[in-house]
């Protein structure tokens, strides 16, 4: 039987009736139309479905929607820079050609956001290590790593 779930999505309090087996990814997509959260494997192996749950990157295909009760979810649609415009990561992904087909992109950006929140000045190895759970079939990752490094530098500059 469907259960009532209340959660905060991208800053707005929302309510939804979800079957107990529905994943958060499925609910974000099908019930809220937030198609930016991608499902590529549905088994937790690729990171395409990554969202921020209370600020931390999680695989929303592995999390039951009912378990998100009362929690804060940020999807790619809700990511903003300080000025309300593009987040420096989004900007850097554009400028460094880190996007090809784009299917891994939302998950990559949100994973990187979580990584930079914890470690604002990572080395290239730390970026590769920290993001190795996210698969991309198009880019070979070089430009994604470059973009994350560039965004990290820019964000540190902003904080100064």
């Amino acid at each position: 039987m469907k259960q009532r779930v209340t959660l905060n999505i991208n800053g707005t309090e929302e309510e939804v009736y979800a079957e107990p087996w529905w994943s958060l990814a499925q609910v974000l997509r099908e019930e809220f139309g937030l198609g930016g959260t991608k499902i590529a494997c549905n088994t937790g192996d690729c990171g395409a479905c990554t969202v921020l749950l209370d600020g931390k990157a999680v695989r929303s295909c592995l999390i039951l929607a009912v378990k998100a009760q009362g929690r804060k979810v940020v999807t790619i649609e809700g990511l903003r820079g300080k000025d309300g415009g593009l987040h420096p990561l989004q900007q850097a992904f554009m400028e460094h050609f880190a996007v090809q087909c784009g299917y891994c992109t939302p998950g990559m950006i949100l994973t990187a956001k979580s990584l930079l929140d914890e470690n604002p000045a990572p080395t290239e190895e730390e970026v590769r290590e920290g993001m190795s759970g996210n698969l991309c079939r198009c880019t070979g990752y070089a430009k994604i790593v470059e973009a994350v490094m560039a965004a990290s530098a820019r964000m540190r500059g902003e904080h100064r």
Partner: protein
Amino acid sequence: MSELSVVGKNVIRLDALEKVTGTALYAADEALGEPGMLHGKVLWSPHAHARIISIDISRAKKVPGVEAVLTGKDVPEARVGSCVDDQHMLAREKVRFVGDAVAVVAARTLEAAEEALALIKVKYEVLPAVFDAEEAMRPDCPVVLHPGLSGYKRNMYPYLGNDLPGPNVHTHHKVRRGNVEEGFRQADLIVENRFSTARISHCQLEPASSVARPNVDGTLVISTSTKSVYTGVQAEVCRFFGLPPSKVRGVTHYIGGNFGSAPRAHIFAALAAIRTGRPVKVVFSREECFFRDLNRLPMVIYLKDGVKKDGTLVARQIKLICNCGAYAQITPLVIRNGSFGSSQYRIPNFRWDAYGVYTNEPPSGAFRGFGNAQPFWAMEQHMDIIAEKLRMDPVELRQKNLIAEGEENLRGEKTHSMGAAECLDKVAQWIGWGRPTSQPSSNTVKVAKGFALANKYTQVDTIASALVRFNKDGFVDVFHGSDEIGQGSQTVLAQIAAEELGVPVEKIKVIWGDSARVPYDHGAISSRTTMFVGNAIRAACQDVKRLICATASPVMGAAPEDLEARGGQIYFRSNPSKSMPVSDLFLPGRATCLPHDAELLGQGTFFYKGYSDGDPETGQGTRLTASYCYTAHAVEVAVDTETGEVKVLRFCSATDVGRAINPKLCEAQSEGGIAQGIGSALYEEMLLDRGRVLNCNFHDYGMPRMTELPGNHDLKCFLVEANHREGPFGAKGMGEGAMTPSAPAIANAIYNATGVRLMDLPMSPERLLRALKAQNKEAGHKSGPL
């Protein structure tokens, strides 16, 4: 050529903003939560080969919410296929692989569809099956997949059905040049080996998805994640369902990666939509993608080379046995086109026989490189083997045999736009060929370099059309029928239009992806979009410029040929300081020839005249391909001789792209190709147990992750620009060439590190350890007491 202002610049991708904000729409995102949408699910055969005795759908039909349960009885009786009509959409009498489609359910919820699927009872009589292509190829193979093969209709290259040596062989492709026997007699050295490649999966991240909507007027609108609105969707659905093109509208959105895959969720969505009269969405699970994507065609390759003492190649004989799986699909074309790679060297005596064989494995198809990466796996290892035996430098051996600009290649084509020599030099220099490795070898970790040279042709027999609309606000709409599969075609095509029209690229809007709204194109296949669609767009831009001048002629009081349209202005050729904005042609109340709301529309088409399929017996012709993109890869690897693990330390590529319209996008293709190349070389293989894929998920299938690739300082992608006279601004296609030399380059490096030559893909730790062990044993024998 005069200064270019947009071509050659790193214009930021036009689709980047949508993609980084999560607003880009893909087929899987269409109709999210849409009420009234039915969900389609397919029942797949659990057997590799079986006769269907009966199918009981009575219980499945009773599940609440189920609108249709369809089986082989509900599909057209005629067989269909890409090259050979050998398949029913849903199996009618027999299933031939684990994953053959048996039934389709359409229901109001996914849960209901899944429940119904589980309630379909199929009785099978299991039949003996064959999985090995060499076994299946034998004339006396007891298992015959398609006893009716000789009567099947062939849709393209019917001559590929001649001279078939066994009942499971559907394709035999031949190339003949000179006389190989004579060539081998002249040779001072003959090298002969057997190689094999693995079945690998595209793993594009977007799962196969499709939405089919029947319109009240009888039109079917089908959006899909499979590319090519005309050839991949419209033409195919028309053929499969016997519908006229006017009744089928193919739509693509952004496509979440492709690399040649053709999973065709749209066929099942279309079937269910036609039978129910309701919109139906089908999304494959990742597991389903693995067995339905039409994986990279595995080949067994017997290669024999004859060479003179001085390194001159005199003869090459190559026999390929291709495990196509249960249905031919596009493999006859993959097999034929896989032959073009060998054209890069001058080989006076050449013989190629490639066989497409049915087995009870999941069907194969196109994969980045379209049949070229597999022969290169063998050919480019042989070049190193030969060089070593002749004590020649392998770079020099290749340079010596490279075909030259203007020279006739072994297919009879005149070579043009030949940047291979420069590619080789670039990678050899960067990797430091002949110089010490970046780190020394230890007792257990051996470090060495290796390289390979390969190419990818672009198919010649396709056509592209484009429309260009010059709007009164100065913005330009470009309409074309190719796809955005991630390669950045929209950006490149906008740059071509901007350059030709002299307007800023920000003023170009590119519109694609709907057969009802964009002109005909073959789609994003064969690395053809830049060249074919780019040329069509250029022609359309020239057409609209002519129209602008003709329209301005009476207004400006000059003959059209005395005017020039550039950058939104119309100039007098005799006095370029005097001009009129194009937008003035739209001004009301002026002496204008255009009504206020009119538009200026240009049209362009591009195709090759005078191309041929080649002689069916010899494969010879004067124009068989549009262009060749050459790629050299050089790598440095560290081989752990205790674990068998190979780490790629440094990687360099150089690709001859003719002209880089957008260098960063070319570089991005190169980097992506390298990652797939490393994956195919070291990790990737669909593991099959009697036809069943065992590792059909991202956990067990070894797609490379960030940590498995060299760091950014150890990666370099060069672009070489051997302008192609027929390419737009000199450009050629380059997306597929990006991965063709990787596997042999890595194999050559592993050999240089360990002395072990691996001839089967992938070069997994197990294989490498086994080979090292065998080597030790041999060495033990040799160094034993005399």
